[in-house]
């Protein structure tokens, strides 16, 4: 890999397209075309210079923009495949039955989709590796291009060789009367147009918006920071994602948030008092919710208190958690995610004689969150709870069993004592069922007399320390994109020989339209010869366009 010696004597690294010093085209291709390729200002892209070791080969692979674009397209296609059927996280089936769900609902295709892992596509290894490769490509390609470009822009010379200037898209040639005055006038006008002007003898370089060339590199830095932030979420401690169900009246320790407790004071569900219409009907929405809200109190243990120690809880604040209005505290946020209405909280029973059910001997109110062993009704009657099963599921060896600790189907084994039956009668009462009387026919029974219910709320607890990083990444990305898109790098080279011969060339990395406005202004002000756009020569417009695509690969430059 030898250096290329330019006609001007400058030694350029292998792969350079335009001499770093004078701008002469160095490749055969460059010498043939009418308009040179100005990407990266003709600097050697680093990857193309060394290709020896294994590492270099990998590096060069990722340095290629073609590979980068291919990776973007593959990611795009993969992402779209994941939307053909709903992803597992949105499927309404228990974790273990998801595979069956896909087969049941979507037939063979669902089975196929699920078995290929496409139903959880975005967390598959290959998808992550794909995004990772995209990240490598962004970093490597940016390094390889950004650094040489920066060097080239920094070391720009004012004076360029004729062959360089003549191969720019915009050129003007002609004669002027007064060389020095022309140069002065151009300088004056271009300065007025906010260009930075440098002069070197008979040559002049006017430049504006050079920073626009850095836009793509800045936005790539932003993207990488963003992706790094996403990756950091996996590091323990950076990201907390817990969930909690809590009933009205309960106080619970908040998982993930050590030392904090939350009390559910009240859950409210408000609905719009309107009839569903149009789209809502189509989507099967019956009543539209207006607001889900849980009024909570947040408590904190005093410093150094142990788990389980509920003395001296300090109240932090009262808050109403609503959708879009999470409770925020100490970097954590609690979101209203779900609710369950009408769980039994209290059940009332009347102790009645079967002979006369209308006249009760008294009523007991069983607080299901704290049932008492015995309820004294006065007048010699009392009711004792022998067994309480919150979620009765049947008998096993004569013992009533409970499925869960939630009062979905409460059942009681009562012993009822009355003056008439001082020894007591035993009755098994299950909600909505006739009582069982295991020890023989009773004279009395417990008659259901109403219940009180409560609601429960489901919160998600999140802490995401990576959010600031993601935010910074996003902002840098936006700055880079905006710089790269809304500004452009304009340059004008002018050479006025003492004999009055003028050669002018101009380059802009995008938006030739506004560059031409500047050129028109300076041309008329300094009475320069009329410039021409080499890509718009009417006689061979078609031809140059085709050649433009094939050979120079675009005049738009990074």
């Amino acid at each position: 890999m030898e250096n290329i010696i330019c006609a001007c004597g400058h030694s350029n690294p292998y792969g350079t397209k335009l001499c770093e010093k004078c701008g002469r085209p160095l490749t055969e291709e460059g010498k043939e075309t009418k308009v040179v390729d100005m990407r990266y200002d003709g600097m050697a892209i680093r990857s193309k210079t060394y290709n020896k070791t294994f590492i270099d080969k990998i590096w060069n692979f990722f340095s290629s923009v073609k590979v980068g674009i291919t990776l973007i397209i593959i990611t795009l296609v993969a992402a779209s495949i994941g939307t053909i059927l709903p992803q597992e996280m949105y499927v309404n089936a228990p974790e273990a039955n998801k595979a069956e769900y896909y087969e049941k609902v979507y037939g063979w295709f669902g089975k196929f989709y699920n078995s290929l892992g496409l139903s959880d596509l975005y967390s598959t290894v290959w998808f992550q590796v794909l995004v990772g490769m995209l990240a490598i490509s962004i970093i490597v390609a940016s390094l390889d291009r950004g650094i040489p470009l920066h060097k080239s822009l920094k070391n720009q010379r004012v004076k360029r060789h004729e062959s360089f200037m003549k191969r720019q898209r915009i050129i003007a040639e002609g004669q002027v009367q007064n060389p020095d005055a022309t140069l002065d006038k151009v300088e004056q006008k271009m300065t007025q147009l906010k260009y930075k002007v440098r002069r070197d003898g008979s040559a002049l370089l006017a430049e504006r918006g050079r920073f626009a060339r850095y836009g793509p590199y800045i936005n790539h830095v932003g993207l990488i920071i963003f992706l790094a932030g996403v990756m950091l979420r996996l590091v323990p401690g950076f990201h907390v994602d817990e969930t909690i169900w809590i009933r009205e009246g309960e106080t619970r320790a908040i998982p993930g948030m050590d030392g904090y407790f939350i009390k559910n004071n009240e859950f409210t569900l408000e609905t719009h008092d309107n009839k569903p219409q149009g789209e809502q009907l189509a989507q099967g929405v019956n009543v539209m919710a207006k607001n889900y809200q849980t009024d909570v109190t947040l408590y904190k243990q005093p410093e150094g208190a142990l788990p389980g120690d509920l003395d001296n809880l300090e109240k932090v604040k009262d808050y109403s958690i609503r959708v879009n209005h999470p409770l925020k505290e100490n970097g954590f946020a609690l979101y209203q995610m779900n609710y369950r209405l009408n769980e039994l909280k209290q059940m009332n029973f009347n102790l009645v004689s079967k002979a006369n059910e209308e006249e009760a001997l008294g009523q007991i109110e069983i607080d299901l969150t704290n049932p008492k062993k015995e309820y004294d009704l006065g007048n010699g009657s009392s009711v004792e709870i022998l067994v309480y099963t919150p979620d009765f599921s049947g008998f096993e060896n004569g013992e009533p069993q409970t499925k869960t600790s939630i009062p979905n189907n409460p059942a009681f084994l009562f012993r009822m004592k009355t003056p008439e039956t001082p020894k007591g009668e035993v009755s098994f009462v299950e909600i909505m069922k006739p009582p069982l009387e295991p020890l023989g026919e009773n004279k009395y029974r417990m008659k259901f007399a109403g219940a009180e219910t409560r609601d429960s709320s489901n919160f998600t607890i999140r802490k995401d320390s990576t959010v600031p990083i993601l935010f910074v990444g996003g902002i840098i990305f936006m700055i880079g994109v905006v710089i790269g898109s809304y500004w452009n790098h304009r340059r004008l080279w002018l050479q006025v020989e003492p004999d009055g011969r003028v050669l002018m060339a101009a380059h802009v990395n995008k938006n030739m339209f506004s560059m031409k406005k500047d050129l028109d202004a300076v041309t008329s002000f300094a009475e320069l010869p009329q410039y021409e756009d080499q890509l718009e020569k009417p006689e061979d417009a078609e031809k140059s366009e085709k050649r433009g695509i094939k050979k120079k690969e675009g005049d738009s430059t990074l």
Partner: protein
Amino acid sequence: MSLIDISGNLLFVAFIAYLVATLLFGGSIKQSNATGKNTDKWGKLAIIVTIIGFLSQLGYFITRWIYTGHAPVSNMFEFTTAFGMFIVGAFILIYFIYRLTALGLIALPVALLIIAYAAMFPTEVSPLVPSLQSHWLTIHVITAALGQSILAISAVAGLIYLLKVVDLKKPSKQRFWLEAVMFFLVVVIGFVIATSIFSGMGYESNYTYVDKEGTERQITYNMPPLFGMNEYKAVEEHGMSPLVEMPALINAKKLTTVVWSLLVGSILYLLIRLITRRRISAMFQPFVQRVNLHLVDEIGYRSVLIGFPVFTLGALIFAMIWAQQAWSRFWGWDPKEVWALITWLFYAAFLHLRLSKGWEGEKSAWLALIGFGIILFNLIAVNLIIAGLHSYAAS
């Protein structure tokens, strides 16, 4: 007259104005073709009428916002109408940079079609579910729609470019696909016609059916049912019975709508071809004869450059901020999110192809059309087909 009526009238005025402006733009080009001059009164008049239409639609937007109390971008009708408005806005912006009349001749009909399409959805004011009650959502949706509409202008430029460049005399892939784009536009008209006719007749048939999870549901067809839902039973049927029953996986009602639109659209297309004896692309070609290809190419590129950052901000960054607030996570791989990402990746690829691979001119024009196709897919298909499986409105 209440505010909502005023709002409706303003939208109607805007629609008529766009229609008139389209004709004026056409006239302006015809005239300059004939005289060979670009200085024309028609063109000026056309852009003035366009601006009047835009202001009128802005009036619709603002009055509806005041009336409903939330930004009118919360359902298909409102969002799509706003999208149409932003396309006109983006066109006006680009027009004042480049002064290309041909742009109006394509951009305005596209906006008209989009607004007409929007009007086929229920226009009632509907209240918001809690997750949608957020300022960030408003900001996100409006910015995203703005970005999409600027990107749409690049497709308009691309179409003009292709109309000029593709040789319509010889059969080619390009000629086929260009006409396919035209056909698609006619199918949208077909949808509008079919929907208007049947709703004008007040057509309604009711069925019960069994959905894919086995629950029985009810459904109302507003078009004569060509396809029946899974295990459908008629509750109240008019005119005809479904011809074919569909499995539970396919929403036969939507399929019916699509097929009716295709039918009406195809008939319309055939009629146009029979009457004019030309391809639709060929009908447009004379209007773009005099455009400067370099300029059109630059407009297409410039719209992507202007639109891409706006789209990124609206459809990804603001969307993440809203999602973080409403759903506790900034990203959830929801189909709507994924398709926004796909759109973004596509335009990223577009820019890289253009910058480093030199995909300019015709290639770039095709890409711009594909990009707009993805945007429309996100708007129509993801909302109506895919999102039916996991809809934002579900919770």
